[in-house]
């Protein structure tokens, strides 16, 4: 049989899915082992035991100076910034996206401005934000919003434009006002796309968050890894990277699950990823 027609069994699929992860871990373990044979105090590729120990210390032992449990403090602060930023972006995407996608006059007024604005590399605005808003939370959240909102607004507007014209006309013949069409037709049709766009925007959102924290902050996951970089503390940095990845993964899965639960009709056609 041709290879394109051969489908893995569930067990095989799971095994194949885990294989690249296992290979990565094994490769690291071997490399780390040989480096530590030369120099038992090697800092670049610490053993799993040392990383686990360092991670455990960050999670359970209060910091000597502040008395905080650093991992949880960092996670909470970072997630709070990320969540607030993405919430603002989502609200902007819904309100502006629907207005731009649904009302031609608003589209004419805002679409060119928005596509220009979204081309500004967000990081270049960071100094401006720090100067205007100071080094506090506002500047970091603003960076996340500026970095993600334009793209989310555009993709929401596009999702509105992609609603079949037939449905909108049908709603008109059923006597719907513009507002009723927004609440009963446009909003439910667009929300699943908004969640997809939110999931995709979380990737750049993390980048902006970590960057802002690295440059000016006193807490947060990004702040921590850039702080301990000075001591070449790979035993903290590597677990932190894994931890950030895990948080990002869980957020993504939670949003997918939400979409499947809340918008079952949208997933009936069978979709992937």
């Amino acid at each position, binding site marked *: 049989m041709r290879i394109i027609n051969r489908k893995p069994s569930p067990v095989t699929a799971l095994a194949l899915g885990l294989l690249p992860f296992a290979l990565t871990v094994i490769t690291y373990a071997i490399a780390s082992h040989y480096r530590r044979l030369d120099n038992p105090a090697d800092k670049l590729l610490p053993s799993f035991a040392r990383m686990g120990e360092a991670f455990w210390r960050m999670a359970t032992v209060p910091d000597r100076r502040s008395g905080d449990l650093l991992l949880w403090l960092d996670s909470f602060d970072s997630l709070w910034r990320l969540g607030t930023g993405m919430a603002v972006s989502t609200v902007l995407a819904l309100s502006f996206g629907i207005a731009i996608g649904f009302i031609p006059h608003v589209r004419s007024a805002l679409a060119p401005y928005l596509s220009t604005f979204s081309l500004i590399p967000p990081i270049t605005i960071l100094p401006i934000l720090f100067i205007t808003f100071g080094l506090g939370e506002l500047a970091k959240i603003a960076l996340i919003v500026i970095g993600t909102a334009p793209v989310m607004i555009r993709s929401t507007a596009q999702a509105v434009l992609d609603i079949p014209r037939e*449905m909108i*006309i049908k709603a008109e013949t059923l006597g*719907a006002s513009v507002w009723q069409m927004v*609440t009963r*037709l446009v909003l439910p049709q667009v929300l699943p796309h908004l969640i997809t766009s939110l999931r995709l925007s979380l990737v750049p959102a993390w980048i902006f968050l970590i960057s802002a924290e690295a440059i000016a902050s006193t807490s947060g996951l990004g702040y921590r890894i850039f702080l301990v970089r000075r001591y070449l503390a790979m035993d903290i940095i590597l677990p932190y990277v894994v931890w950030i990845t895990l948080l990002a993964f869980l957020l993504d899965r939670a949003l997918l699950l939400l979409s499947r639960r809340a918008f079952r009709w949208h997933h009936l056609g069978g979709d992937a990823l």
Partner: protein
Amino acid sequence: MTTSPKLSVQGLAKFYDGMPVLERVNLEVGSGSFCTIVGASGCGKSTFLRMLLSQEHPSRGQILLDGTSLPLEPTPDRGIVFQKYSVFSHLTVAENLILAQEFEASRWSGRLFGTARKAAFQTIDDLLDRIGLQPAANKYPAQLSGGMQQRLAIAQALVKKPSILLLDEPFGALDPGIRVDMHELLLGLWKELSMTVFMVTHDIHEAFKLGTRLLVFDKIRHDPQAPQAYGATVTYDLPLKSPTGQPVQSPEAIAGAIGVAQQSPFTKNAQE
């Protein structure tokens, strides 16, 4: 005819980028007619239907409904069934059918709650039975077959009791056997509700079977150097039911005369 016509089309023309699609269309249609519209692809029959719906506007001429100009946008007095995307994919069958009631009852949320919602669901019980979708009341359109979706679309279009029902190739994507069922449903509803119906179709047999009047759209002038130079108009306007109930001309004769690809209901429809 002494009574004023339900719908009157006067000197209608439609241009796209200066190219005529339709020109000099004049038509008077009495109340309760079932007009079937046939013609070659791209001859403007769907454009004509969209103008009846106010989805598009005439470049020249006017369309009068009960003696007054058509509104500039789609309104509940004209129902529409498209070939696809006619129903709301995010609502179940029953929710699709009560939507018009919800729009009417609740100006801001467009939504009914609690007992009002239950009452609305009860009002559509008979309708669901009629279109045979009672067992599928809580399914989403994506879970229905094509025929079931179109039955739902027709029922939904009739909820507001429009005086005119417009159908744009509604059965074009359905199997022949299903089509016959749909014909019966449609004819039954038409007689019951005394609507005026306009239906665009590719299938000339379907046009003969359903209509009381057949409108054929075609170009009467051809410029071989510029095939786009002239638009189509109504070239045949035939009453289909003679007093004895017999068709006055055979579908084959018409199909031959206008050069429409003749399609028997038992051959697979090659076009969409």
